[in-house]
């Protein structure tokens, strides 16, 4: 059986060599110009004045607090989305109910809405002049310009990632295995834990990686609700912007390089997960007698 790298292409779907090379060259040029050079610049600028200044910029208290807040936001929003994403995908893929298409559209909403608008929604609801602002103030609960607002905004923008990843996967798998488990006496929880979850684990991991990357990198929505209080409500992306506006280029690029590193790690993890999932599928196919 031919491997994934050794696919035979029909002559009718191939182009002349010069077309192929030109297209490849254009693609490589664009990738170099817009992806590789900027990434290189980030690290170059960050390290321009030496490693000492680079590390100093990162262990400075405001930077550390920004890193901490970013990690907190991700640590809360990713598990929340995990639970929601699995529940929503389970409901949509395995059951038929009225309003299913409305739910699918709603899940996509955060992709369609500009992040700034998403942030504004929360300001309008929970801000001092917002709907529940006075009530919240009376009870001394701070949401906007505080950590809860940042978490809410992050949850909103990362909402679709896991559900979107799982819905097509679960729909393709159907529900026959779950039915089989039920006839064998498994409870709902046992069915989910022993049958459904193992079947979707790679898709789930993939969704978690993407959601995490977005949660840590989100700028727009968080910027609106954060209030930019240094050392308190600044996430890493916001901290980068502040440093840059203060002409502290080394600091800005040092923190930016952290985000860039995060992106690279995410990409590597994502590729690994894809590779593992493919490997397993290929192994299953290769061994199939039929």
């Amino acid at each position: 059986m031919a491997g994934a790298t050794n696919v035979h292409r029909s002559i009718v779907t191939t182009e002349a060599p010069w077309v192929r090379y030109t297209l490849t060259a254009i693609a490589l040029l664009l990738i170099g110009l817009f992806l590789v050079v900027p990434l290189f610049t980030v690290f170059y600028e960050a390290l321009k004045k030496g490693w000492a200044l680079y590390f100093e910029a990162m262990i400075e208290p405001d930077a550390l607090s920004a890193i901490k807040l970013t990690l907190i936001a991700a640590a809360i929003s990713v598990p929340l989305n995990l639970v929601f994403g699995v529940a929503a995908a389970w409901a949509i893929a395995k059951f038929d109910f009225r309003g299913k298409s409305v739910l699918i559209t709603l899940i996509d909403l955060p992709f369609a809405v500009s992040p700034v608008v998403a942030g504004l929604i929360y300001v309008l609801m929970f801000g001092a002049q917002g709907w529940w602002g006075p009530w919240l103030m009376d009870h001394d609960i701070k949401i906007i310009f505080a950590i809860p607002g940042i978490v809410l905004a992050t949850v909103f923008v990362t909402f679709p990632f896991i559900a979107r990843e799982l819905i097509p996967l679960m729909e393709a798998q159907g529900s026959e295995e779950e039915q089989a488990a039920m006839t064998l006496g498994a409870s709902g929880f046992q069915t989910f834990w022993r049958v459904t979850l193992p079947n979707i684990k790679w898709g789930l991991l993939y969704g978690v990686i993407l959601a995490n990357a977005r949660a840590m990198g989100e700028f727009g929505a968080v910027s609106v609700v954060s209030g930019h209080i240094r050392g308190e409500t600044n996430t890493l992306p916001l901290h980068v912007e502040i440093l840059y506006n203060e002409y502290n280029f080394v600091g800005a690029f040092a923190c930016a390089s952290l985000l860039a590193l995060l992106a690279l790690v995410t990409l590597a993890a994502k590729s690994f997960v894809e590779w593992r999932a493919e490997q397993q599928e290929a192994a299953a196919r290769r061994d199939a007698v039929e």
Partner: protein
Amino acid sequence: MSIEIKNISKQFGDFKALDNINLEVASGELLALLGPSGCGKTSLLRVIAGLETPDNGQILFHGEDTTDTHVRERQVGFVFQHYALFRHMTVFENVAFGLRVRPKKTRPSDAEIRKKVHRLLELVQLDWLADRFPAQLSGGQRQRIALARALAVEPRVLLLDEPFGALDTKVRKELRRWLRRLHDEIHVTSVFVTHDQEEALEVADRVVVMNKGQIEQIGTPSQVYDTPASPFVYQFLGDINLFHSRVHDGWAEVAGARIAATDSPDAAKATIYVRPHEIDLSRVASEAAIAGKITHVRLLGSTVRLEVDVADHDAVEVELTRERYAEGEWKVGEAVWLNPRDAKVYTGL
């Protein structure tokens, strides 16, 4: 364990899948639900299993009402058309699943599970595949594993939904004989769904022919084949030739030939069915013979099919054995007389 199905109805939107079904399955019996797709046979099976809830009616297992018992507690073994094996578990774990998910109190020990699973794998003759994954098995092997998995929970009844539907013809034939032998060995009350009349007639103790959500006939394979209760059963259980005519004095006329239609009211519209292999060919005219002309001859393995044009009617198919065909030396273009050995006349349709 006997199954009693009382006044079961089930509707999907505007579609009436099951229309007041009454049926009894005797203990230890192997029963086939036979019918075209969309006739409700799978819905009925799923209602018996508890995978669908009926709109009306009752399901009784051994006299005990199980209509509202959840599928989890109903203790049925269900075998799916596309196997539905757990793809991430080995064959062993698939078969062990039903034992492992039991509550702690009734769960057998690991050693007992191992023993039982291996005994079941031996029963389906696939003990050597215990460590494989479902994707590594052939279709026939997968279905046998699915059967072992269903039997592991010691089901009160075994339900099989088109168990051989996804297999190729040769494997299908082997497997259905194997299923019959297995059933003779373990004697669990079984119901299986099929759209293949040959399969139903060969394997089942009794056949239930269904159409449009209703039961057309219940009987042993020879009863439903030899004395079909309705035109539908007649045409579903084999190839047919169909003639339209009217009854006069106990006879129906087809292209000059007279076919006995005793008991039929005079001037009634008659539909006459004749099976292709129940027609004799002759070069001599007679009162009961239909005149025609051979237009095509097709060799189909052990039999030969001839297409005969008959005036004012659709072309008639005649099936002869190889020997009869050779003896008669029939040629395309030849004028012949068709003698139906057996014809069913239905009036009032």
